[in-house]
């Protein structure tokens, strides 16, 4: 069956979020969100990004966060080297 558009969006959004955090917030590419104890590294990095852009720090890819991630930008990371 064709994937329901919403589910498809969700997958696409998650890919966008992961790529964004890997490119600009030093999210390790091999992060294992479900194996490590403690906070999900992706959520932690997402909070860092939300704090940087003055968004509400939710750790969740809400609409405002996705909107910023879709904006054209500089290729240099926002944190670290």
């Amino acid at each position, binding site marked *: 069956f064709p994937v329901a558009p919403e589910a498809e969006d969700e997958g696409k959004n998650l890919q966008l979020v992961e790529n964004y955090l890997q*490119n*600009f917030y030093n999210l390790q590419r091999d992060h294992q969100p479900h194996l490590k104890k403690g906070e999900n590294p992706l959520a932690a990095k997402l909070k860092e990004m939300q704090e*940087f*852009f*003055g968004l*509400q720090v939710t750790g969740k890819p809400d609409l405002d966060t996705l909107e*910023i991630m879709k*904006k*054209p*930008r*500089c*290729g*240099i990371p*926002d944190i*670290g*080297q």
Partner: protein
Amino acid sequence: YVFTPGNPKWKRNNLTYRILNYTPKMRRADVNEAIRKALSVWSNVTPLTFRKVEDKEADIMISFAYRDHHDNSPFDGPNGQLAHAFQPGEGIGGDVHLDEEEAWTKDGRGYNLFIVIAHELGHSLGLSHSNDPGALMYPTYSYTDPKEFLLPQDDIDGIQAIYGQSNAAVQPTGPITPQTCDPNLTFDAITTLRGEIIFFKGRYMLRKHPARTETELNFISLFWPKLPSGIQAAYENVERDEVLLFKEDKYWVLRGYDIAPGYPKPIYRLGFPKTVKRVNAAYSDETTGKTYFFIADRYWRYDENKKSMDHGYPRKIVSDFGKIGRVDAVFQKDGYVYFFHGTTQFQFDPRAKRIIGQMKSISWFNC
């Protein structure tokens, strides 16, 4: 502002640059000019100088590159990542790479080359991304008319912290990004727009939606690239679903969210005498169909149905609205009129014809 980790900086003030190749999307002369102007953004506020070289190794090598260009940071095609640059240092240090697949332009279409290169040169000189949304070193692209571009204070502070001040007798200063809860915040103009309130300040607009606690800060140019910064007056004609925006002796009309074609037009079309050079503030009373224009210590009244100024105007503001002084900005909401004079806000009841409240200018921002 943020320094690049490790605080790299050039050991010399006299730097060289070289343009390795050109994008076919712009005239060569326009690319040269965009780069020259982008370099002057930084040399104007520091002791740094930039000399163009043609064929040898330069400190800052500028090139347009395509996808994987062998620096471990491949470009991603149109949009997304527009460019990147390397921190000060030998070899690739200081170099600027621009994604050839972007629509490079010298105006507001596509991506303005001057703005992007000026940002990347900040990296070439040792700055990282700033979280000040008005800073040039803010990571996301936003267009500003190059003719109106002023390096924001946040960037000036950052680059001068690395290289020191410029040798100019008068130190240049830059625009400061408005902070919604700054008690000293004043406004150029305010209008309602389809239930929201838009506060204009310099090149910014603060947008307050009644259902959201936070206030959104954007560049005016983000929504309306054709509008200038420094809007001086604005009002909404709710019946016509229009907002009129004023600067000097011209005005624009927003229909819905778009600038109507054929604008700006001279304000004299509305019936102002030639002695009037600008409008300070305006609001339109939805119930009476009358629009009030405030200029210096007087005001005019315009009949939206007759499309002409009422007779017997201008009148003195103080005689009909009380001691509110010069009006910077004004808007009407829920039947009350809110006058802004500096950091003071007066609530005026047009039925009782008197001031019924006084607040701070930032009272709308849930500080």
